[in-house]
């Protein structure tokens, strides 16, 4: 057991893609330390689902949030203390079902938090119902004859909502995933990493993705280009899809100058005209 792993016993299924994400983030944390981002300043939040269990296993400070709300919790942390780097582990049910509004608005704000999407296209922890990212026809316990509608595309939606960094990784390609994580965390502004994460128990997509994943040569240089990349059906591009230097969300009240009790009271007295 390394020093980034807690004593919690790991209950992911053998072969689950989540192990890859766990390994990659540990490697990323170590790389970031080399780059001056100490693990004390790296705060995680997590949604509820199999993905969220990373909260118990990873020895970082953080907040195990509600199903669907980890992106809001993350933003609240960042807003209150912009000196922290905030990373958010989310499931596709949690982030694109229950709490999709928060993801869209975090991207719109371009707030400097990073979201890692455990994209297994299924509700894992609740035993395999269709998720918003499940293929049409997915047979789960709530759709025994197959789901009716096509999946949302996370990259397209994040792009159109205003995310300034978008990447896609695959739990079977760890060095690339680690790399993406480091880049996403270093990015100033909202960053989103779509991580293909097969669920061996309810949606084993290793065989589906293995032949169609493909590394991108270079990131798209415009949103249009990135959108086109996202529309590809034949291949699933991996790597940084888009990255731009748009101004991130900023506090209106500079945090550096957090006011003393005395200063505050003085100002309130003057507001009260007393």
């Amino acid at each position, binding site marked *: 057991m390394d020093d980034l792993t*807690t*004593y*919690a016993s790991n209950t992911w299924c053998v072969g689950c893609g989540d192990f890859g994400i766990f390994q990659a983030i540990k490697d990323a944390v170590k790389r970031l330390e080399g780059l001056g981002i*100490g693990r*004390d*300043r790296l*705060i995680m*939040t997590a949604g*509820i689902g199999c993905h969220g*269990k990373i*909260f*118990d296993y990873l*020895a*970082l*400070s*953080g*907040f*195990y*949030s*509600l199903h669907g*709300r980890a992106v*809001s*919790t*993350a*933003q*609240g*942390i960042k*807003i*209150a*203390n912009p*000196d*922290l780097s905030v990373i958010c582990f989310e499931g596709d049910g949690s982030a694109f079902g229950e*709490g999709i*509004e*928060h993801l*869209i*608005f975090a991207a719109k704000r371009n707030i400097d938090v990073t979201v890692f999407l455990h994209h297994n296209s299924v509700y894992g922890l609740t035993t395999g119902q269709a998720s918003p990212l499940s293929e049409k026809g997915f047979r789960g316990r709530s759709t025994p004859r197959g789901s009716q509608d096509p999946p949302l595309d996370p990259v397209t939606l994040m792009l159109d909502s205003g995310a300034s960094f978008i990447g896609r990784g695959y739990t079977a390609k760890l060095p690339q995933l680690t790399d993406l994580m480091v880049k996403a965390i270093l990015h100033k502004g909202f960053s989103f990493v779509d991580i293909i994460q097969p669920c061996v128990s309810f949606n084993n997509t290793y065989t589906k993705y293995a032949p169609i994943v493909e590394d991108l040569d270079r990131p798209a240089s415009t949103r249009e280009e990135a959108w086109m990349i996202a529309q590809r059906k034949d291949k699933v591009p991996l790597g940084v899809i888009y990255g731009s230097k748009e101004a991130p969300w900023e*506090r*209106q*009240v500079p*945090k550096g*100058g*957090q*006011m003393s*009790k005395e*200063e*505050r*009271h003085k*100002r*309130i*007295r003057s*507001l*009260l*005209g*007393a």
Partner: protein
Amino acid sequence: MTSDPFTFLVGGKAGEGVKSAAGSAADLFSEMGRHVFQMDDYQSLIRGGHNFSMVSSDIEPIWSHHSKADLIVCLDQKSYDLHKEHVSDRGLVVLNEGAVEGEGAFVPLIKEARKYPKPELRLGLGAFTVLCAVMGMPEDDLKRILEREYPKDREVNLAYGLSIYHATNESVGQRFDPRPGTFKGSRILTGNEAIALGAASAGLDVYYAYPMTPSSSILHYLAAHDRDLGVEVVHAESEIAVINMAIGSTYVGARAMVGTSGGGFALMDEAISLAGMVESPILSILSSRPGPSTGVPTYTAQADLDFALGRGFGEFPQIVASPGSVEEAFYLASEMLDLVWRFQTPGIILTEKHLSESAMNVKLDVERASYPQPLMHTSGEYKRYSLTDNGISPLLFPPSPQMIKWNSYEHDEAGITTEDAGTIEKMADKRLAKEKALIRQMIGMRTVNTFGGGPVIMTYGSTTMSVMEALRISGIEAKVIQPVYLRPFPVWEMKAYMKESPVVVEQSCSGMFARLLREKAGITASHVIRRYDGRPFDPKELSERLKEMI
């Protein structure tokens, strides 16, 4: 010092400046050293419809507007039709000449306004000028005051104001002479502003909200003064985002607050339970309007009492308190912020449109506000949920070399998820211990206000103001008991009244507050005076009903 009440009513369409005319009147009376109460009655629309505002003032402390006015200025016909009966015996009705038919003094409010662009927007100024004139204000004072109250478009406003001033002098002349009082150096604040300032005094760092009447003015006020007050203000995408962001902010030690009304607060319910589990000190303002559901957005009610008392699923301590005046709203906001940080659990300030949006002039002592100083971890290994006698675990905020884990699942002391039977039980006991510690703390605090002596009247929240004013103006002797804290309910104080059969006054249809008194403290009301048509009590009518009963 005898009483010298004076009430001004101005009515017209939304967009005609009714509210700001009343605001100027309130300023004027306050400057005279008088006590002031302003109540705005408006509809859920932006232009048109019927709005009216009332400003009552006296040289003694005053707790409510009165519904009989000494001066009524009717900007439109509806105002006349609806309010012509509301004139006091000595009162005067002024009609907008050419626009309103009726009995009273005609003043060419719109006629004169038509000489300038956007005539409708100036009517409020005209109404205020009528007030100044009938009070015999010298022309120079009027000019000074108009310049201060209506600084935009100065020239035109002054010219228009003077024309109304002269017209009023001609047709009515001085009619009233309200006496100056001794209450100098006060400040006019709405309940919402007082809450905002009280929380700011207690070190509020972040305010999150999604607009919802009648809570929105907290958002507007703090947004307008964010840098002055050092409070970051975020209008997020929904109430669910609001509360989850706010709870996230408390994780790093920021004093966070949210504000909304019933619908928005209902949406926050899952996160209130989250706060109970992670032990987040989050303070919420719940400002009520008549429900259920969308209800009647711009009116008042006290039908969210059960709702405020029954938030979240599972068991965890909660604190609910409701202020009875603008002044109390200020101190209570700071005290509640202190309490939630002390006990690391969610708290609610329950108030109503009638207090949130009504204004009083008050003198506040910022030094008397509480300032949270939560229990901090000092040394050794840190465990977020360390088990202690009183259930309170010390806090530590990132960045820290120690691991700080807040967890919505049941957890062990370090904050790691557990399904272990023994740990589940211990953590439930820990949260119950905090509740007991909270009650011990509250026993040493002022949790119930009592005023006067005589037969007992029980009330709470903004209705306290109506009751106090009813007693004042009628001279009824009675003892008013107002529990400020509603959860934990201060039975230790209230049980002294178990033998009483008080008259209960509240703004709910089913008598929620009377039921609370019965269920929690065994107090059975002799009578329950209820009003639930969206309007606050009129002190005069209330005093007559009280007279029959005590």
